[in-house]
């Protein structure tokens, strides 16, 4: 089986090289047969990478410990679900998995554009296959996932226990899908630059891919935060670790692109800027992989360090050189005919939003690479920690929420005083009222008061948009409220889906602010029967019980919780001991309500005296963050949902859309 896998990746690499050559030469010579051959190579590449993944999965599931990867990342006692997750649990597997997602995307792109984008497609194929070939070359020449050992261990050394968590089974795939799908808009952007057809076509073709990519980047980041929250056991979910920053930066530039692309579609402006954002987003995904794989920047949770750094750095420089070169070459063709007319306009609000998003991305980048830069410049490594990121990004995030309220409702071109007053009277009043209320309730924390006030402002603008649109339909068409609302959204999914995403974002923001500003924390050593109070909760420690199976030993503390004297239930924070890796881990117990999360950690347990140390956190409005994530996902799904009117419109206009028209 490992021979089949090995053969598949070697052939896949050769086929990719052929596909790149055939596509480029075919495009330059206008040779249709060669171009078709390049496209066929893309399908073959996908099939071969699929076979390689299937082979590795089979090896994992059959516990063939003679294969180094299987021996390193799984064991006979590892539950099947995590054995499948071991596919992306180690570096070699995750590289293969990355290539596989890219291969699937490539096949979909080929199928979607069978009869469309004739000029661009060879270049798209060449770019996608180049990225694929790069990843496969690592697996073929540097680090072979199918490598066999000279002996067969009786048992594998198991997956890192920190990865044996359900969030970890969906977090990496989501993030990878988000990362990899940024390649598709990038490929179309490069194709547009190469062919010189720089109209809106490439943007319209990749619109849905971009939203799709953003959807998974969002989910990937949130799942990662959820994983950190339930697994790492320090009461938080985000530590500004380089690995987390690596996933966050492409999200920021991708968000900026989603907004600025609307300006290009409506006003034919910001063409160069959009190109830059697409290139930057893709480059940041490669940079992120470089960060996590190179060990250049020390991170608490880069699970694998390797000699991959130089390869990724080289590839990144190559990507940037080619992209910037093409962009500079086509710069004269990207001139816009339109200019900004007023500071009080939607264009200006969107532009500001872009500046702030890219500003945040820059500060995150700067903070992440600061140790390396300071070592170059001054010869000493200087690190900046979470306080740096929090301090810098708090004001920027507030500006972003303010713009999130302004952008959707302010008029295009130039807003009149009248229209400003009509649009913003109620949102401003609500914002001020909520600000005043939180000032009285929450006390003098400046950031929290401003944050709640601005969130209320942004939420009210969204509310008025829905309300006004619905009332107009009710009045003009005589539709009942629900019909009016659903048709309003249905007729303009992108706009109203976007508003729903804004609601989710505001909820996440409120959750982040409340849980970090008003967090309570206590640590206490307890004898059985001892109690500890936090907020409205009282926790009584009643000793421990133990569980044991061949894979893991568990010590579960019995913590009886009451709220204002009324019983809530028993929480069981655990200490675990994974037998294969001989590694202890901590499992937290969380009692989650809409108002707050009670988060309990078993700090230590002393068997002779039966005493334990409990660490207890009270995180206010924590669940708003996860609910906000669900709302964001829902809104994005509304945006992505293929709408009938859009399909027929694009079909009659002869403009290819991101989706397949009737086939």
């Amino acid at each position, binding site marked *: 089986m490992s021979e089949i896998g090995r053969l598949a990746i070697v052939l896949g690499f050769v086929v990719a090289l052929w596909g790149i050559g055939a596509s480029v030469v075919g495009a330059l010579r206008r040779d249709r047969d060669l171009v078709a051959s390049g496209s066929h190579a893309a399908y073959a590449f996908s099939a071969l990478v699929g076979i390689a993944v299937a082979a590795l999965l089979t090896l994992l599931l059959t516990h063939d410990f003679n294969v180094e990867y299987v021996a390193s990342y799984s064991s006979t006692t590892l539950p099947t679900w995590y054995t499948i997750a071991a596919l992306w649990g180690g570096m070699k597997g995750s590289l293969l998995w990355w290539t596989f997602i890219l291969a699937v995307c490539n096949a979909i792109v080929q199928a979607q554009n069978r009869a469309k984008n004739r000029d661009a497609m060879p270049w798209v194929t060449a770019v996608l296959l180049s990225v694929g070939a790069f990843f496969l070359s690592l697996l073929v020449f540097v680090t072979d996932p199918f490598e066999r050992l000279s002996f067969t261990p009786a048992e594998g*050394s198991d997956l890192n226990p920190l990865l044996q968590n359900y969030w970890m089974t969906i977090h990496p795939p989501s993030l990878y899908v988000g990362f990899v799908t940024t390649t598709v808009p990038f490929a179309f952007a490069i194709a547009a630059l190469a062919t010189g057809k720089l109209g809106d076509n490439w943007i319209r073709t990749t619109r849905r891919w971009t939203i799709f990519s953003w959807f998974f980047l969002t989910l990937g980041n949130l799942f990662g935060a959820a994983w950190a929250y339930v697994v790492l056991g320090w009461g938080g979910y985000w530590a500004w670790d380089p690995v987390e920053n690596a996933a966050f930066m492409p999200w920021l530039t991708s968000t900026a692109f989603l907004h600025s692309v609307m300006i290009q579609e409506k006003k034919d402006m910001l063409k160069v800027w959009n190109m830059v954002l697409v290139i930057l987003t893709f480059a940041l995904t490669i940079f992120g992989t470089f960060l996590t794989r190179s060990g250049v920047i020390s991170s608490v949770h880069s699970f694998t360090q390797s000699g991959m750094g130089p390869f990724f750095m080289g590839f990144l420089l190559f990507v940037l050189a080619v992209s910037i070169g093409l962009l500079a070459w086509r710069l004269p063709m990207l001139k816009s005919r339109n*200019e900004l007319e007023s500071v009080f306009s939607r264009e200006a609000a969107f532009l500001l939003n872009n500046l702030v998003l890219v500003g945040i991305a820059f500060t995150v980048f700067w903070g992440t690479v600061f140790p390396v830069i300071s070592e170059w410049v001054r010869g000493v490594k200087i690190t900046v*920690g979470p306080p*740096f990121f929090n301090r810098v990004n708090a004001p920027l995030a507030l500006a972003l929420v303010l713009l999130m309220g302004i952008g959707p409702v302010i008029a295009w071109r130039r807003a009149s005083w009248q229209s400003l007053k009509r649009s913003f009277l109620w949102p401003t009043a609500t914002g001020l009222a909520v600000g005043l209320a939180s000032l009285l309730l929450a006390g003098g924390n400046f950031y929290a008061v401003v944050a709640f006030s601005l969130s209320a402002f942004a939420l009210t603008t969204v509310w008025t948009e829905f309300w006004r649109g619905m009332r107009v339909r009710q009045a003009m068409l005589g539709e009942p409220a629900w019909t009016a609302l659903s048709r309003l959204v249905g007729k303009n999914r992108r706009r109203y889906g976007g508003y729903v995403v804004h609601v989710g974002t505001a909820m996440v923001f409120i959750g982040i602010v409340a849980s970090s500003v008003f967090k309570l924390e206590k640590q206490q050593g307890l004898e059985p029967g001892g109690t500890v109070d936090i907020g409205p909760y009282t926790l009584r420690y009643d000793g421990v019980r133990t569980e044991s199976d061949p894979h893991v030993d568990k010590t579960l503390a019995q913590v009886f919780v009451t709220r204002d004297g009324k019983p809530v239930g028993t929480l069981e924070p655990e200490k675990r001991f994974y037998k294969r890796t001989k590694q202890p881990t901590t499992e937290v117990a969380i009692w989650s309500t809409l108002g707050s999360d009670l988060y309990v950690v078993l700090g*230590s347990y002393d068997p002779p005296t039966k005493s334990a140390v409990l660490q207890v956190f009270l995180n206010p409005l924590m669940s708003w963050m996860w609910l906000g994530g669900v709302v964001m996902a829902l809104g994005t799904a509304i945006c992505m949902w293929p709408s009938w009117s859009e399909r027929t419109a694009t079909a009659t206009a002869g403009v290819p859309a991101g989706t397949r028209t009737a086939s």
Partner: protein
Amino acid sequence: MNRKSKFLVGAAIIVAAVGTLVWTAVRETSAYFMTVDEWAVDPKAHADAALRLAGRVSQGTVQWNPKTLDLAFVLMPIPKGQGGTHEARRAGEVLPAAAAAARLPVSYNGILPDMFADGRDVIVEGHVVDGVFHAKSLLTTCPSKYEADKQAPAGEAGDNGSPA
């Protein structure tokens, strides 16, 4: 002033604001990141500075009081070639022998990380006061020992060549 230059001025103000934010935050929140031996070359140079030190927990020095959550141990340099990214790495630099023998007592209060134990590699953040490192945070670095264990058999396989 025409519109375009107005926008350019606006953009410049935003860029300058972000720059100022970054600049002041770096000044006030940064910490020197070094290994214990690098620190030991000239302890006075970083007398009042925020530090982030990488080192190894010296065998048999751990004192842990589960009641008060007080932890004390002695931090020593990580032997050459074992620390991965957490080693004195400045190219060509030879540290004085005294630095390699450096021992720094550390005090910490709080829950112990899961992987904390005698002989483990850790990163501590805090200040040195009167020769004792007061750690605000204590991180155990990746189970590099566990990684090293795995690499041994992989190397053997390399000698025999990978199967076709």
